[in-house]
């Protein structure tokens, strides 16, 4: 089985604090892998590194065999490359201005300014072609969160981060953003493509809401949903981007046993029906031990154990991390 995600030697330092230290980690395709550990073990930090929110201090993360996240290389070269075309044009304009032709000089200035603007905008927007071009010069930039979503990663947050004042339907539609193709020009002109996509995306969004058990709640404003439903909506929103790997950060936190059982079943279904790979951070051991194929235990930013749920449960280091050293 190929690995969806492969992390090697990932380290993250916040000043003097080493939140994540030298972690090797891989997620086989189609599996449910759990990440557990006491509070402050670095689980969420590791999550955020994978999701592209933090840049790692060291280490590489490969997603589907492609190097996505690492320290940036030769980043200084990028602005130099942006500035080269306008600089050349400025030089030409300067030469022209020496001849005293005012009209041509004015045109030169205009073209220079517009080129500068164009290169600046491309540099900010970073379209794929631009990124490939930059790779040719050996420039590497760590993927941003939105790049990771495009590559096929969906996530939820530990403390729910829904778009609270938007409807459930709109939340899911926002999740679909990266998979929709209409541009702002399509929207302005209300082209057939735009209208077609708007209809089909609503149908898909309704299916997703039904899948997570929120059928008919599409018009409810997200923050008016009960807590458990908000968690489900967050999962639906993450699923909307058609991810291959789903990161769930404590999905059952604050739920009662019934809701927890429901959600555990839902996660199982996500794998069996949608063929998803799931990485789970969870404190509820019944959930972890019930559905995980493999469990990795972190403590103080280091990996202290890895294996099947049964192996991990018996591991003395894990017991020590959770319960402390037995008195001598």
């Amino acid at each position: 089985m190929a690995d969806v995600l492969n992390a090697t030697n990932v380290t993250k330092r916040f000043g003097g604090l080493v939140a994540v230290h030298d972690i090797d980690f891989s997620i086989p395709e189609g599996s449910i892998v759990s990440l557990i550990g006491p509070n402050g073990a670095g689980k969420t930090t590791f999550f955020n590194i994978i999701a592209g929110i933090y840049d790692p201090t060291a280490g590489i993360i490969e997603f589907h065999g492609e190097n996505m996240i690492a320290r940036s290389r030769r980043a200084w070269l990028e602005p130099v490359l942006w500035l080269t075309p306008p600089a050349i044009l400025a030089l030409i304009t300067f030469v022209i201005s020496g001849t005293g032709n005012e009209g041509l000089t004015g045109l030169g200035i205009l073209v220079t300014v517009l080129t500068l603007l164009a290169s600046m905008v491309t540099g900010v927007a970073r379209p794929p072609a631009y990124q490939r071009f930059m790779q040719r010069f050996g420039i590497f930039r760590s993927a941003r969160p939105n790049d990771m979503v495009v590559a096929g990663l969906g996530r939820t947050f530990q403390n729910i981060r829904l778009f609270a004042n938007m409807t459930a339907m709109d939340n899911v539609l926002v999740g679909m953003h990266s998979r929709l193709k209409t541009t702002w020009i399509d929207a302005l002109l209300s082209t057939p493509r735009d209208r077609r996509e708007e209809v089909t995306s609503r149908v898909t969004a309704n299916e997703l809401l039904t899948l997570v058990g929120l059928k008919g709640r599409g018009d409810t404003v997200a923050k008016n949903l009960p807590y458990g439903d908000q968690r489900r909506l967050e999962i639906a929103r993450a699923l909307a981007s058609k991810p291959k790997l789903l990161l769930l950060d404590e999905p059952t936190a604050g739920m009662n046993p019934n809701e927890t059982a429901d959600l555990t079943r839902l996660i199982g279904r996500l794998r069996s029906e949608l063929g998803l790979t799931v990485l789970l951070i969870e404190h509820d051991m019944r959930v972890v031990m019930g559905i995980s194929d493999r469990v990795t235990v972190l403590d103080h930013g280091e990996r202290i154990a890895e294996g099947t749920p049964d192996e991990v449960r018996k591991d003395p280091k894990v017991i020590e991390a959770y319960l402390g050293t037995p008195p001598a």
Partner: protein
Amino acid sequence: MIGLRARWRLFRARARTFSEHHRSASILITMSIAAVFLVVLPRIPPFSAIQSENPWYDAFANAGVYVLLAMGLNVVVGLAGLLDLGYAAFFAIGSYTYAYSNSPFSGLDLPFFPMLFVGAAVAAVFGIALGAPTLRLRGDYLAIMTLGFGEIVPIVFVNSDPYTNGTNGIGGIYRPEALPFFGEFSPLTSFNYMIVMIAIVTVAMMLLYRLHDSRIGRAWMAIREDELAAAANGINTVVTKLLAFALGATTAGFAGVFSASKLTIVSPDQFYFTVSFTVLAMVIVGGMGNIWGVAAGAFIVFLIQAVLLKQLSSIAELLNVPPIDIGPIHFDLVKFDFTEYQYLLFGIALVIMMLKRPEGLFPSRERRAELHESSEGALDDELATGAAGDA
């Protein structure tokens, strides 16, 4: 009585469904009705008594400029949630673009309608130039940056004398060419300006609504709600914010060209902070995020400023309001100049507004939900679902 109210509710519900499914058509219908009203109203008694037709048409056309500005700023502040305190800068850039292309100062005389788009494009270029390096900033920092830009632009126009004629500004700007059915744009009546303005506002509103209802509009709102979550859901936040900024600037550019052609003079003092502030206040009063609400709010606020306050004394005179004497205080409504206290009254109105109706006069559904947690809708939802999830 109840039957009537129920019927009214039904009508409103139907109108809402219609407008949600046929946005452009409903805007066209509403704006046509509004146009007829604007043409007819100044001729009938209560309005014709306040002032004659032409000042009304003039006020409507000027109000249109602010409606356009407010709708543009609404994209930036109301939808994308980027606080822009220097919006007048883009208005200024649009105005000066037209002034260059149509005045004795530059010796050019280019046609008005294409220049409308050129002015908007130039403003958009400046919007992108300002936004591209700075839109990584958030909240207060962005506000300060835009405030600075808004101050810099008029100062540049003041100080680059040879290109902008300094404090005097560029005068004698040519008026637009005659319209096919309505004839010349004369300095005597603003009727044609009003008609053109209504057309521009209608088109702008349609286009903005289309964006609002699309994937882009949802992305803007997502960024306003939670930028990190928006990024984690695949939205390229920098590009999306840049688009909002550029579109806001474009709208201001349109307004600038129109306003320059109408006033026939541009000078830096038309574009100081008070303009940015007034437009922002209009957006807040109208109801942030709701396009037509913002437009209506801007229209009302402008008319209060430009007509009501100016005419309040004469209305008082008409009604024979006696002067009030309380000890040493002598207060004569007839001789009182309300326009001098315009910003004081504006400030008081804003404070009252923030206390009593923070979501604005015509709020969007999201804003109303945000500011009134225990509103009807929320209560209904809670009753329907119970508090089962709060374990």
